[in-house]
């Protein structure tokens, strides 16, 4: 017999239960107060996080933004479907955009060594007449571009670009806030809120606050995973209907996700598979008995078919060789992947910006510390199904990235980027954070504290990341350290506004997490239950 002293948890009540245990919201759980207010505040918070980047960055400061801006302006001028042509990088298409939109040297910060400040781009002409312009994004689905391009029709200059970025930030903020509110509303433990916070990395907010569909794609992935995790890991009786807005969130986020890129259908299918794998036994049949679930499935399938049709008709699948040198031995590609590419991918999951702007290593380690604190204890205390789902998500993400790197290496050279796989890999964190047993083991208040800690640390790192990037945009490679208050280039709104917006957004998230912590019932770590997880 083991007489090692353990805590007595026999007084565990419904009020101290953790994990996604009450998707109907009909239990005795306390939180759930004013979800609409939470949603609106979260929209504001995540919008501000992206807005800091939107107003702080020069033209083409985020991955291929110049290509996306041209596509967006063209789409908003009515050119939704473009003829596939060898326009740029032996691909893309031509579209008509105002001459005043693009500065004369948009790539100078990438091409000139050492990197000059953003003033090297020069001033765009004042001529707003339309000119035939190539774009590498010419074959992409026009849905996102139409929305973010509209301001550029009214203001065909940098003002329009910044407003387009803000529209993009708002769209993504809607998804992030939906995920945040679902985590707040339906999951009694605080850890899924922490999960949403730590997957919203500086790379994500950098992308959401720019003209680049990758940000919306990632945030749709976060929303999809969050909703699926809550649905799958709920401990509610299976005869109760799943809340409609969870299903709506699944439908909308999956529809956006399948539409954005060629990989979209896979980025929806895999979360569904892994969430199903993680689900408690009997959960899936319970869900499939509901008509609303079938309706959701129908919508997603229809959107997928439409997306696949676009992929085949738009010319997206044709890859034109951009690399000279012929076949590269696979062993060399593997070495490249293992030593360099994987490092870039892991950095880019957190903070690696266009032009290889990378915050100090310790900022990445701090971020992964937070992820480790959420994910690894969940793996330790959870059942085999959830562990398999989490590890499977990571493994499939890695396998997919490596496979595609191998597949396209000869034609494109190193082509895969970590951000492409963020919509998928975030699932490992979100599933772990939803683990019913994790909240039970940690207890309510420590879970809340962990969430607030995640908010505080990530807030600081969001600001540091922006400061590092702005320093380079302002000074080029000439300055070491953080110097955002000086430099030849200056954002239109001044250097303080972007930092202030990001800081306020990040702190608002901390406040929301803290409110969630204060609003809960104090409890003690409970005994692990046999069911779930």
């Amino acid at each position, binding site marked *: *017999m*083991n*007489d*090692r*002293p*353990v*805590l007595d948890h026999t007084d565990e009540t419904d009020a101290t239960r953790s994990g996604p245990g009450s998707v109907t919201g009909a239990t005795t759980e306390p939180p759930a107060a004013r979800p609409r207010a939470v949603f609106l505040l979260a929209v504001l918070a995540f919008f501000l996080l992206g807005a800091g980047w939107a107003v702080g960055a020069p033209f083409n400061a985020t991955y291929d933004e110049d290509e996306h801006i041209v596509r967006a302006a063209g789409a908003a001028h009515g050119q939704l479907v473009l003829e596939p042509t060898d326009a740029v990088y032996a691909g893309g298409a031509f579209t008509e955009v105002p001459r005043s939109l693009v500065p004369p040297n948009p790539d100078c910060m990438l091409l000139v060594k050492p990197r000059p400040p953003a003033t090297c781009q020069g001033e765009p002409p004042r001529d707003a007449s339309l000119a035939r312009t190539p774009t590498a994004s010419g074959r992409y689905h026009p849905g996102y571009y139409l929305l973010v391009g509209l301001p550029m029709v009214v203001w065909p200059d940098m003002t329009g670009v910044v407003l387009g970025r803000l529209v993009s930030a708002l769209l993504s903020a809607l998804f992030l806030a939906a995920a945040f509110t679902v985590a707040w509303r339906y999951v009694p433990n605080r850890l899924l809120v922490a999960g949403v916070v730590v997957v919203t990395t500086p790379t994500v907010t950098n992308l959401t606050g720019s003209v680049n569909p990758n940000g919306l794609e990632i945030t749709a992935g976060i929303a999809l995973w969050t909703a699926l995790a809550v649905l799958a890991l709920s401990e509610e009786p299976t005869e109760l209907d799943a809340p409609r807005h969870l299903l709506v969130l699944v439908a909308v986020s999956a529809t956006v996700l399948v539409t954005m890129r060629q990989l979209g259908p896979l980025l929806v299918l895999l979360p569904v598979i892994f969430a199903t794998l993680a689900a408690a036994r009997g959960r899936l049949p319970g869900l499939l008995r509901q008509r609303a679930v079938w309706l959701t499935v129908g919508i997603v399938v229809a959107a997928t078919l439409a997306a696949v049709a676009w992929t085949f008709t738009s010319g997206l699948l044709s890859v034109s060789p951009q690399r000279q040198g012929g076949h590269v031995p696979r*062993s*060399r590609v593997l*070495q490249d992947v*293992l*030593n*360099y590419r*994987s*490092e870039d*991918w*892991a*950095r880019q999951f957190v903070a690696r910006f266009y032009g290889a702007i990378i915050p*100090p*290593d*310790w900022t*990445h*380690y701090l971020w*992964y*510390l*937070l*992820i*480790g*604190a959420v*994910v*690894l*204890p969940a*793996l*330790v*205390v959870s059942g085999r199904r959830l562990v398999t789902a989490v590890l499977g998500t990571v493994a499939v993400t890695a396998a997919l990235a490596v496979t595609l790197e191998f597949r396209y290496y000869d034609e494109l050279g190193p082509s895969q980027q970590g951000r492409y796989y963020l919509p998928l890999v975030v699932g490992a964190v979100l599933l772990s954070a939803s683990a019913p047993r994790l909240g039970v*083991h*940690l*207890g309510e208040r*420590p*879970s809340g*504290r*962990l969430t607030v*800690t995640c908010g505080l640390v990530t807030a600081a790192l969001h600001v540091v990341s922006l400061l*590092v990037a702005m320093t380079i945009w302002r000074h080029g490679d000439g300055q*070491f*350290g*953080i110097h955002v208050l000086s430099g030849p280039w200056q954002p239109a709104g001044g250097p303080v506004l972007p930092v202030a917006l990001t800081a306020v957004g990040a702190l608002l998230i901390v406040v929301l997490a803290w409110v969630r912590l204060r609003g809960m019932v104090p409890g003690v*770590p409970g005994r*692990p239950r046999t069911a779930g997880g």
Partner: protein
Amino acid sequence: MVSASPGYQPRRRLRAGWWLACLAFFLIGAGWAFALPVDGTYDESQHIVRAYGAASGQVYSPPAKAKRGGGAWYQVPRSLLPGNVHCPWKGEDPADRKDASCQHRPPDDTTRKRTGTTAGRYNPVYYLPVGVPMVLLPNHTGIVLARLVSSLLSAVLLASAVVVALRLRNRLMLAAVVLATTPMAANLNGAVNPNGLEIAAGVLLWATLLALLRTPEKTFDDATVRRLLVLAAVAASVLLTVRALGPLWLSGITAVALVVAPRGRIPGLLRRRDARLLLAGVAAVAVFAVGWLLMSGALEAVPTRGGHEPLGDMVRLMTVDRASFWTDQIVGQFSYGETTLPSWLIMFWYAMVAALVLPAGLLASRRDRWTLVAVGVGSALALAVLEVAYYPTLNWAQHGRYVMPFGVGLLLIAAVVGRYPAALGEAGQSALLRFVVLGTAPLHLYALALVMTRFQGGPGVPVNPFAGDWLPPSGPVLPLLAMIAGLSLLVWYGYRGTGWIDRWPAGGQDRAAT
């Protein structure tokens, strides 16, 4: 009271655990010892000269401008070191860095010549045992044997820390010991460099002090308390003597241990005669260590390449650049800082650290939580303060590994404070331990393969530890096999070896969990 229970034979199991852990850590260090060329680890050639000197009777040498404007002179056989020992890394330009085949073969001539070393003023305690093989065999074989002695010394201390964890029946502390032995620490263990032993001593000192101070009275029988006291005294003495920063780290560890000790625990220990005697012994060692530091000139920083920067710029540079070097190196930045593990592997290591430390901190009492924060912040601040203090004389000279003897306290404290062990339960603790031993093993192996490749094929070539223009004298397979054997033992023990502690009646669980 701990008492042997029929059938489980805990004493035998503890002994077996010690031997197994000692063998495992020794083999991990041995992998590095067999693999690298002379000077393949930070400043190894300097330490080799000092170790030979100490073991050959030159225990003390007057301070002189012998190397980089400081250090001391020793008479060392010509056969010991290649004349151009620094050629693989010398030069700031990465293009100048080569594989180890550039090192000339040392002559067979064992006559001695006067050789300068920057380590010439360091305390001889570490160098005496490590130097003996080189006195007997003043060539590369002697150097490899010296490294093995170094690895063995560290393994003894680490295995003792493992036994402390077993006595506490605390698998989280076992995981902490495994996580504290990063690839960097293992590399240092298997090199002629006192830093590895210093880190191992830090691990053991934390483990023993926490076992003595954080367990309820009467948890251990008298003999066990005495053993723990002896181990603590040994660890403290090693820490005091092997490097100049030892007294600082000992003060820090002791201060933190006093803070986390429940009221009345320390007076209770001090009522024991053996505790007072051992304390007196450590005090004597401290007098010797501080006396050596003052007499030998080891504290003199020779202003050879100092810099002049305003404090604000120094802080900025430390924040952006140095802090990354510190954090990278704690896990794996090898050779002379030019060979670093891919950052995602370092991230993974820190994620495992977080899995132990953060939940433990959140489930701890306020005092314990702030203690954890203080150890983490204190480690970073200590490096920053040392950097600022020595910048005018040594330029940027502080390394993350320097602070590890103190910083590993973060892991070991996390293993015992608060309700985390109880919240995880036995199954959860076992799973975390399994995860840690299984997660760290490939990283150790990859680190070795990476650094072997760097010296065999040159910097930046694709990882292949089996080929290159230079190969370890014992061949490339032996180091890898030694490493694999050591790691396999650890993994096996993490999976299968600790089941008996759950059947061991009574034990030293943390007071907070009782």
